[in-house]
Every structure is written in structure tokens, then in C-alpha cells.
């Protein structure tokens, strides 16, 4: 009797405690997200930590002149006007673009966004003579816009942006140049200080930053696009590099949303009522071959044979079906896919035949070495996946040896190219990549000038035909013509099989049942404005 009374009391106390906890939550809603980054991405206006940095510390706090359309889960996302209302290339001089800026946009500190503010943000990465030029920002920015040369003001809402050569990819590239408030920088004249209280014009305002622990944002009611004023009052971003920690934190109610739950935990999360969202995004997990003269992979037949030798369904199964089979750099229904004459599929018979034609067979097995990492951002489950491919290739007579190195070193080697001693004679390298803009997806890999030390044409592709196609795409300033030109590049990329395309990631996320209204776009970036908490 006494016991049950005690129990009742305890229950009552618990209920009122819950009620108390629920009350302020009703007044103010908070979305807490566990990121995969090891630290809060830099809030200097040019985030580090790759695209995850842009997702959480870039597009939340800041806007760029051009933005990705993240409103649809079905369509491939396209570039739309952001702080620029429209843009056009100069008909006579294709290296000059006119950008008309959006009027009436205010930064979070109340100052106006105008041509001077835009120019300031170009200068921060381009003009060494300016006090706001900063090497850290340069490192995060310029690799993503290699042809950007400068910008000049025409009037308060018009600027001219210049590139070093005609480059139709510029609007894509500029999605990575974020507009910070010059007035906020001027207060301390230091980006390090600015990062402690960043001011942009994005849908989220900065509240607080605890280094390595959390970044707190609140909704910016004065955001210029009324449709994208956040539906949640606050957003808290917490770095959790360890996948299990993320799952544990979600299950124990410390966060409402986690990025990239490990595929093994997904069935369990689902059974407990958590929402699992996923959607393919522009990510490819390939083997990039060394095709320099003298390599066995200079022979197209060998490359195609390998392309056909692996059953990608097995890879998907290995990943709990959290991947889609790759048929090229981009998805099959993407405007850039085109109609390649060679189909990437599982066909071991043809694979053996092609190998035999190239002079390999039971008597002369093809041996190859691949540099891989044991982990790394976007690398999925590299060891298991590579071992699976190794098993499959063995069956058509290819013996694969792995050189497992640290992720950071692998990354470095990617830049150094296949001819560098660091490659240790590897025939292929396994570095996953993003291709949401054409420079990332094609130009940096297939353009013969992009070999080390310029960019990541790791395998020394020197294909004059390809160069022509890439140049044509770069020079196609009409969006439709550009997409057609890119599809020609892609067709050749598939037919030549310079890369072995294995899978695309689907970017799983796990959300608590309380999270509503999230639309996962086919993109590295996502819109948090539509999310509400119940």
C-alpha cells in the first residue's frame, strides 16, 4: 500500500516535471542536429569541413549570389538566383559577367547588402592588397572557383565579375562564395574575431558558439525570401564524428536529427519509430585509373572489362541498400547523363572476352594495385567495399592488391597524381567525389591541363577529344546548350571508362519522430527552413 502510494507520487512528480519541460518547448522550438564533422565548421563566412561545412555553417548563416534550389526531393537541384537577381555574360567578352544584385536585402546587423558588400567579399579571397584578404578563406574558396579573377562595381546594385578564361560554370562556382557583412568585419578587422560572432544575410542568425561543442542559431525573421524564414525558432549544431556516438545521442534524446547513421543501425532506428530519410545526391564512389602510356589501363578494353566485372547489387547489399549502382559520373536520369554507347553493368562474360582481346587470360593474369583508405569523409565503408570488388575481379582473372593508407595521405596523393612516388606505382586510387557542378564533376578530372600540380586528373588523362568537349561545355553560356555539351563529355567519360564507377551514396539521415517537414533534396546541401518541431 505504502509502496504503491510512493510510486504514485513518483509518477506524479515525473509527470509534472515532464509538463514543465514541455512548456518552454511549446513556447520555443529547437532543432538539435548531430553533424559528422569533428568540429564546428569555420564560421568565417567560408566554412571548412568540406560540403558539410557549407551545409551547416555556410548556407545557414550566409547567402551567396547564386543558390541551389533545394525545394524538391525529385528533381536534380539547379542553380537559382540568390543575392543576385539575374546574371548574364557579356556577349562580346565572354570573360565578363554582369550580375544584378537583389535590392532591399539586409544583413543580420541591419546593414544593407549592395555592390560594395559584394565586392568586399570577392576581395577577401582575391585581392592581396586589401586588409580583409585572408589565406584561410582563400584555401576554402579558390579551389572551387579556379577561373575567378575579380569583380568591379558598376552601380550600387550592379557588378561585373571577371574570369581568367570564358567559363560557363561560374554561376555554379559562385554558390560557394558567401556574403559576409563588411560592417561586422570592420568592427574588429579580423576574420578570427568575425568568426566569433558571424554576420551574414542567411535564414539563420548566429547566437552562440562553443568551440568543438556546439553552434547555436536562431531564425532570422527579416530574411528576404519570406518562404524560407525558418519554421523552427532555434537550431543547435553539435559535432559528433563517431557514428555510434551519433546513434547513441539520438536514441538517448540528446539530439533530434543525425547525419549519416551507420547503415547497420538503420533497421533498428526505423523499428523504434525514427524517420530515415535518404536521397541520392551528387556523390560517386569510384576507382580512378592510371591511364598514362605504359599502364595496362591505357588500353580501353581492359578498362571496360573491369567496368563490367563487378555486380554492383552485391555492393548495395553490403551497404544495407543505402547506395545506388553507378552507371557513370552522374545518375542515369540526370540531364548530363546523355546516351553513352557503352553501358555500365554486370556482364562477366563480356568482361572476360575483352580481357582476352587485350592479351590477358588464365596464363597471364592482370595484376593491379589500388590505393585506398580505411575511412574518410564520403568514403562509405571502404575496406569492405574494396574487398568485395577484389573478390569479384579475381573471378575474371584480375589480382588486386591494396595499399591501405591514412585518409589524409590518400587525399594528398590524389593531388600529387599517379606519377608521383607517393602513388607507389598504384594503378588506381579510390577517392569519392562530389559532382554537383560541372567543374567538380568533369573539368577537374578530364581536362588534360588538370594534372598535378593543378588539380586532380590523377591518372594523367590526355585525351584531345575530351579536352575539346570540356572546352565546348565551358564555352556554352546558354543553360540548355551547356547541359547538352556536358552530356557529350559524360558520354565519352562512360565510353572511355577512365573511372570505374561503382556506387553513389544516398546520404541517409535519421530524424526523431518529432521532426516534420524536411524535404531531402538531391544535393549535398539541405534546406532547414522548412523543418518544424512537434
Amino acid at each position, binding site marked *: 500500500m505504502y509502496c504503491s502510494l510512493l510510486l504514485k507520487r513518483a509518477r506524479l512528480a515525473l509527470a509534472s516535471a515532464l509538463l514543465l519541460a514541455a512548456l518552454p518547448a511549446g513556447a520555443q522550438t529547437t532543432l538539435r542536429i548531430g553533424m559528422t564533422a*569533428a*568540429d*564546428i565548421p*569555420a564560421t*568565417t563566412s567560408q566554412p*571548412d569541413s*568540406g560540403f558539410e561545412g557549407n551545409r551547416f555553417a555556410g548556407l545557414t548563416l550566409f547567402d551567396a549570389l547564386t543558390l541551389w534550389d533545394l525545394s524538391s526531393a525529385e528533381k536534380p537541384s539547379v542553380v537559382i538566383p540568390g543575392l543576385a537577381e539575374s546574371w548574364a555574360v557579356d556577349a562580346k567578352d565572354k570573360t565578363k559577367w554582369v550580375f544584378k544584385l537583389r535590392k532591399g536585402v539586409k544583413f543580420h546587423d541591419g546593414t544593407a547588402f549592395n555592390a560594395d558588400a559584394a565586392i568586399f567579399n570577392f576581395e577577401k579571397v582575391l585581392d592581396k592588397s586589401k586588409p580583409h584578404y585572408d*589565406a*584561410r578563406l*582563400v*584555401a*576554402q574558396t*579558390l*579551389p*572551387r572557383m*579556379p577561373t575567378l579573377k575579380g569583380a568591379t562595381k558598376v552601380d550600387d546594385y550592379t557588378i561585373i565579375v571577371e574570369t581568367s578564361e570564358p567559363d560557363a560554370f561560374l554561376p555554379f562556382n559562385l554558390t560557394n562564395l558567401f556574403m559576409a557583412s563588411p560592417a561586422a568585419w570592420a568592427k574588429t578587422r579580423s*576574420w*578570427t574575431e568575425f*568568426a566569433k560572432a558571424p554576420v551574414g544575410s542567411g535564414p539563420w542568425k548566429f547566437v*552562440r558558439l*562553443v*568551440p*568543438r*561543442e*556546439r553552434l*547555436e542559431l536562431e531564425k532570422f525573421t527579416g530574411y528576404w525570401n519570406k518562404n524560407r524564414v525558418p519554421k523552427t525558432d532555434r537550431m543547435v549544431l*553539435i559535432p*559528433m564524428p*563517431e557514428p*555510434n*556516438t551519433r*546513434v*547513441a*545521442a539520438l*536514441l*538517448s*534524446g*540528446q539530439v533530434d536529427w543525425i547525419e549519416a547513421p551507420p547503415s547497420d543501425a538503420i533497421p533498428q532506428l526505423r523499428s523504434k519509430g525514427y524517420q530515415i530519410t535518404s536521397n541520392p545526391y551528387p556523390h560517386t564512389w569510384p576507382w580512378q585509373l592510371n591511364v598514362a602510356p605504359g599502364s595496362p589501363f591505357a588500353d580501353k578494353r581492359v578498362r571496360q572489362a573491369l567496368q563490367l566485372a563487378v555486380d554492383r547489387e552485391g555492393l548495395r547489399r553490403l551497404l544495407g541498400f543505402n547506395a545506388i549502382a553507378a552507371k557513370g559520373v552522374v545518375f542515369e536520369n540526370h540531364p548530363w547523363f546523355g546516351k553513352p554507347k557503352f553501358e555500365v553493368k554486370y556482364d562477366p562474360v563480356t568482361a572476360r572476352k575483352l580481357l582476352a582481346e587485350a592479351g590477358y587470360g588464365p596464363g597471364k593474369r592482370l595484376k593491379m594495385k589500388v590505393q585506398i583508405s580505411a575511412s574518410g569523409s564520403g568514403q562509405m565503408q571502404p575496406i569492405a567495399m574494396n574487398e568485395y570488388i577484389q573478390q569479384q575481379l579475381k573471378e575474371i582473372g584480375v589480382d588486386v592488391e591494396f595499399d591501405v593508407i*591514412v585518409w*589524409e*595521405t590518400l*587525399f*594528398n596523393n*590524389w*593531388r*600529387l597524381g599517379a606519377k608521383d612516388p607517393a602513388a607507389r606505382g598504384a594503378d588506381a586510387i579510390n*577517392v569519392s*567525389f562530389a559532382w554537383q557542378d560541372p567543374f*567538380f564533376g568533369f573539368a*577537374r578530372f578530364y581536362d588534360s591541363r588538370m594534372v*598535378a*600540380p*593543378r*588539380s*586532380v586528373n590523377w591518372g594523367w588523362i590526355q585525351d584531345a577529344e575530351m579536352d575539346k568537349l570540356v572546352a565546348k561545355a565551358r564555352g556554352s553560356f546558354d543553360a540548355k546548350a551547356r547541359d547538352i555539351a556536358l552530356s557529350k563529355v559524360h558520354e565519352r567519360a562512360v565510353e572511355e571508362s577512365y573511372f570505374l564507377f561503382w556506387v553513389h551514396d544516398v546520404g541517409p539521415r535519421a530524424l526523431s519522430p518529432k521532426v516534420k517537414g524536411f524535404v531531402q533534396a538531391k544535393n549535398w546541401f539541405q534546406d532547414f527552413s522548412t523543418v518544424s518541431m512537434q
Partner: protein
Amino acid sequence: MFYYLLKRLALVIPIALSVTIVCFSLVYIAPGDPLSAILPSDASIELIDKLKKDYGLDKPIPVQYAIWLGRAVQGDLGTSIATGRPVNAELGRAIFNTLILALFGSLIGFSLGLAFGTIAGYRQGTWIDKSVTALAVAGVSVPHYWLGMVMVIVFSVYFNMLPAMGAGPGGDWIWDAEHLKYVVLPAITISVIPTAIVTRTVRALVADILGREFVIALRAKGLTDRGVFWHVVKNAAPTSLAVMGVQLGYLMGGSILVETVFSWPGSGFLLNTAIFQRDIPLLQGTILALALFFVSLNLIVDLVQTALDPRIRRA
């Protein structure tokens, strides 16, 4: 005594200096690019060279060392490459967090160890003693990161009783119940080894004292059990405290694992992050701070011991 103190202090300087040289050079022999922490995947070699210049990494290494040491002596450890924040500030927070963890860890370790050890010592040879001894052996042998994992699964995931990671609901440490909840699991995990070691020590001490002639004599004289117990405690306390002092050093080192498992933002976690991000200034700063911590801890232990026991005063 004063002379000894001076001599001991004078010795700290060359030690500290060699520590700085070691930690500075270690980082530069390491493979990989010191700038990889901030470079995006596809930065060209040209850009890397440019950045090296901007960060002063193109100068000869002795020059870099001199610059670094000059600043470090003035208490400026530079800025983290990865985050752009001053290393000092990062370290200050991290060391504070580790101290919190170490404090709770040693409290648990010392009290549990004392209790277990005394019981086992009193009941020497019985099954209680045997199970305590077995527990103590298991305690030092079980990989405690693994124990931490299991506890997270049980207490955070299944029972939702305690948070799985972090040092509090938001930022800075506050002495309240909410924050104490965060410290429970990591503190228990980190206290396992000190508990086991203190238990073993205390058990041996108690058994030893109880077996000594003076206790037997006291008992024969009709001293009560309580009186005997008091004697035992008086005799066992200094050694167990000394053992615990040594364990405090261990806690600072062992924290690296526990902090990693629980994402506890302390110095060990920071060191691990710095290693994996190849954040050179942060790595140098953390190693230096930890090294100086241990050098001073040793100095203090030495001095205290000397003060207590003049026989140790060596040449």
C-alpha cells in the same frame, strides 16, 4: 631542504626545454601535410605553396622553432590551423574539463578502493576477499573503453537514464544536477583502474598491518575492534593517498580514451582531434601543456615526499 628545492627546480628548465624540442620536431617528422587540416580536397599544389608561405611554414625548421618558442615563453601558443582560434583558449577549456573528470574519477576510485580494500583485507582468505581480488584483477584487465561502450548502450540507449556524450547541455560547466548527469558515465569508466589499484594496495596494507606484532599485541591488550580499525586506517592512509596521487597522473593520461568514447571535450580528446586533424599548432600546444603538467606533478610529488621523509633527500 632549500638547496634541494633549488636544485630540483633548476633541473626542470632543461627538461622543459628538451620537451619543447621533442614535441616541436616530432610534429615535423610526421608524414602528411601540416596544412591538410584546412585544405579542401582539390586544392592545387600551387595553392598549398602559397598558403605555406602565408602561415610561415616555408621557413627553415630551426627558425620556425625559435619563433614558436619565443611566443610560447610569453604564453602564446599560436592559433589552431583548423579552427583559427587561439590554442591557449582551447587548452584552457579542455584542461578544465579533464580536471573535472579526473576529480570525479579519483573521488569514486579512492572511496570505492578504500572500502573494497579494507573489507578484503579484514576478511583475508574468505570468499569476499577472493571475489574482491578477482574483481580488482578484472578491473585492471578489462579494456575500459569497451566498458564505456557497454555502459552507453545500457544506460543511455536502453534506459535513457544518462546522456551518451558531451560535458553538459550547453557549453560551459556549471555545478548543477543537469551537468552532474553528464559526468556519471565517463567518471565511472575512468575510475575503474584507480579503483582496482587502490583496492589492491589497501587490501595488502590492511592485511599487513593486521598481521604485524603491534596489532596483535594491541588486541591481546584488549583493544576494541574499533580501536584496531583506527590503527589500521592511520597506518594505511598515507600510502593509499600516495598511490592515489600517482593515479591522478594516470587519470590525466587515461582520460584520452574515456574522453574519446564519451566525446568529453577535455585535453585527451583535444590531443586526439589534433592528431587526426594534423593541426600542428594545436598538437604542439597540447603536448607541451600535458608534458609540463606531468613534469610539475612529478616535482610536487618529489618535494612532498622529501618534506615528509628526509631520507629521500638524494644528491
